[in-house]
């Protein structure tokens, strides 16, 4: 029954597609909304558990599960997609194709988050990413199309290596089911395959040195689509890394490398945010930084922490992109100096709430998620707090710019971000966060750091806007190749 969760959006995606040849495009939005919201019903009716689709034997069948790891991610995806659907219905008035692609991303993500089978995971991740390529370039602007091309080339390169590593695992164990794979004693080849798979998933998740495609793709996509990308699509490869860490052995050296990558990603993201003047690129770099936290949970073998943080990030980053989208679509500009949320009190409150949530302040969802991550962290707590302070400083910067100037009323466009802010608040309470004195110190530290940086004039530095060139793809591919070799070497060490 669990697989029905995936079948519903898929069915409605094709029903929506059928409205184009039938010339009934005006009904497409209703079909889209039903397809987006009906999985809620299936999710609420279904209990936890696992099953093999179609009653086949486990060796040949496809196992899906809704357990503590999956159900939280599925819940986050459902909340985020409901808000995105609400925004998209007003944003894509005439473009039925975008609605179909969004439903396909929805189906792909739900399928990814419930899979317990390597090949099935790969297929659904690809359904989500192939639809994403088309959605990035949907506006048809030159920059958007180039960003989509860059995303396509780098992401597909990683996919080929991922499917190659699945092939190695299948060759050595004879299984694709993760539970069965974990019962086979690991060999050198399997360790190499795990390193290959990790390197490709790192690229797809946008972790620091391999993040090159992420800011361009997420910043140039249409507003509701960027919310979905930053919130949910990058979580699919992160979930893959989590599955690998749960069922396959990660050598010590590989885990240390992941830990270094996680911290460098956290700090690189914060640094880039402080000098970025484009609101969507700012949020995209924040995703690079936040994915570092998720990777931290995986590297310290703390799957619950990683899941909590991934869920929290879905809520607040999706919400922030939606509120940024409401401002950007109204003002038709993306520069921080030209935007403001004054004039719309709802948008202002929800943006501030979401900014506090991303900083990990009680009572929002970031607080219990960070606490869960800290529980598994053996050392480097100071660095963790420092990164949190940097995040707060950069979001102080965002709110400082948005507080200035004058904005217009956003009307119904503000509604999705309010929904996400409320969800972040409620989830914070239900995950059981507790107020800590550290929150106040971090908040003050963030504000002081921001003021210091502002006084020193560092915030006036603006990166030059540069065109996306084919050379970028070569650079990304070369970095990926280097990483692949490094991780392969470490896995054998």
């Amino acid at each position, binding site marked *: *029954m669990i*697989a*029905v969760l995936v*079948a519903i959006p*898929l*069915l409605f995606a*094709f*029903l929506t*597609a*059928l409205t*184009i*040849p*039938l010339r009934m495009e005006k009904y497409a939005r209703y079909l889209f909304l039903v397809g987006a919201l009906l999985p809620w019903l299936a999710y609420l009716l279904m209990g936890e558990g696992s099953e093999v*689709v*179609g*009653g086949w034997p486990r060796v040949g069948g496809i196992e899906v599960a809704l357990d503590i790891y999956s159900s939280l991610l599925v819940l986050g995806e459902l909340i985020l997609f409901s808000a995105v659907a609400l925004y998209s219905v007003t944003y894509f008035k005439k473009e039925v194709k975008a609605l179909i692609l969004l439903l396909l991303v929805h189906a792909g993500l739900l399928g990814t988050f419930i899979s317990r089978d390597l090949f099935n995971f790969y297929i659904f991740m690809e359904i989500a990413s192939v639809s994403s390529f088309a959605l990035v370039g949907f506006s048809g602007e030159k920059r958007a199309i180039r960003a989509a091309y860059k995303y396509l080339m780098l992401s597909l390169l990683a996919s080929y290596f991922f499917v190659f590593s699945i092939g190695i695992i299948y060759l050595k164990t004879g299984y694709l089911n993760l539970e069965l794979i974990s019962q086979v004693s690991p060999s050198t080849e399997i360790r190499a395959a795990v390193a290959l798979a990790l390197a490709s998933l790192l690229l797809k998740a946008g972790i620091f040195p391999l993040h090159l495609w992420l800011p361009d793709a997420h910043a140039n996509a249409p507003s509701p689509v960027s919310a979905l990308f930053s919130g949910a699509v990058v979580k699919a490869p992160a979930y893959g890394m989590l599955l690998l860490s749960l069922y396959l052995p990660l050598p010590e050296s590989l885990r240390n490398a992941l830990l270094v990558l996680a911290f460098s990603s956290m700090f690189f993201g914060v640094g880039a945010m402080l000098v970025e003047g484009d609101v969507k690129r700012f949020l995209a770099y924040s995703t690079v930084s936040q994915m570092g936290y998720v990777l931290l949970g995986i590297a310290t073998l703390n799957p619950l922490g990683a899941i909590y943080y991934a869920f929290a990030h879905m809520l607040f980053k999706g919400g922030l992109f939606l509120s940024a989208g409401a401002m950007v679509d109204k003002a038709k500009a993306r520069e921080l100096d030209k935007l403001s949320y004054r004039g719309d009190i709802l948008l202002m409150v929800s943006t501030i709430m979401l900014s506090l949530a991303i900083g990990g302040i009680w009572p929002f969802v970031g607080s219990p998620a960070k606490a869960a991550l800290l529980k598994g962290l053996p050392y480097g707590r100071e660095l963790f707090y420092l990164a949190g302070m940097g995040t707060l400083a950069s979001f102080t910067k965002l709110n400082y710019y948005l507080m200035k100037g004058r904005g217009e009323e956003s009307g119904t466009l503000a509604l999705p971000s309010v929904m996400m802010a409320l969800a972040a608040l409620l989830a914070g309470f239900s995950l059981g966060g507790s107020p800590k004195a550290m929150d106040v110190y971090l908040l003050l530290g963030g504000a002081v750091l921001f003021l210091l940086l502002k006084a020193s004039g560092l915030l006036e530095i603006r990166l030059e806007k540069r065109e996306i060139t084919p050379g970028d793809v070569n650079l990304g591919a070369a970095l990926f190749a280097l990483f692949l070799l490094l991780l392969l070497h470490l896995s054998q060490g």
Partner: protein
Amino acid sequence: MKMSLVVRTTTKLVAPFLVTYGAYLTIYGYESPGGGFQAGVIFAVSVILLMTAYGYRRTRKHFPLRTVQLVESSAALFIVGIAMAGLAFGAFFINFLRPYVPGGTVMTFNIGVALKVGTSFVLVFYILSRWVDRD
């Protein structure tokens, strides 16, 4: 862009056989090499051959874009529908047609996939040749 008489006549002769072979692969694919995807590609090739020999405009008269779109999305709907119909017989994706049809749902899936793949390829070629339409 019109090809020579030899090419056009040969294409006209070959295309029906391709369709027959595609149908064979679809229906018999559940227990021999073949299956929906391969059959769909062969269906598409028969239309694409006509397109290269006679040009986009003449092919479009016989296989209109709208019909291709209609068949494409309803074939996909058919596949998901068959999978969901299994719910009434106990489980998602269950092979509930086995006593009645050779191969059970495997064959119906093959038919759906063949139609979907064939029309998708034709659609891709239509869109590409609309872009370079010079005939």
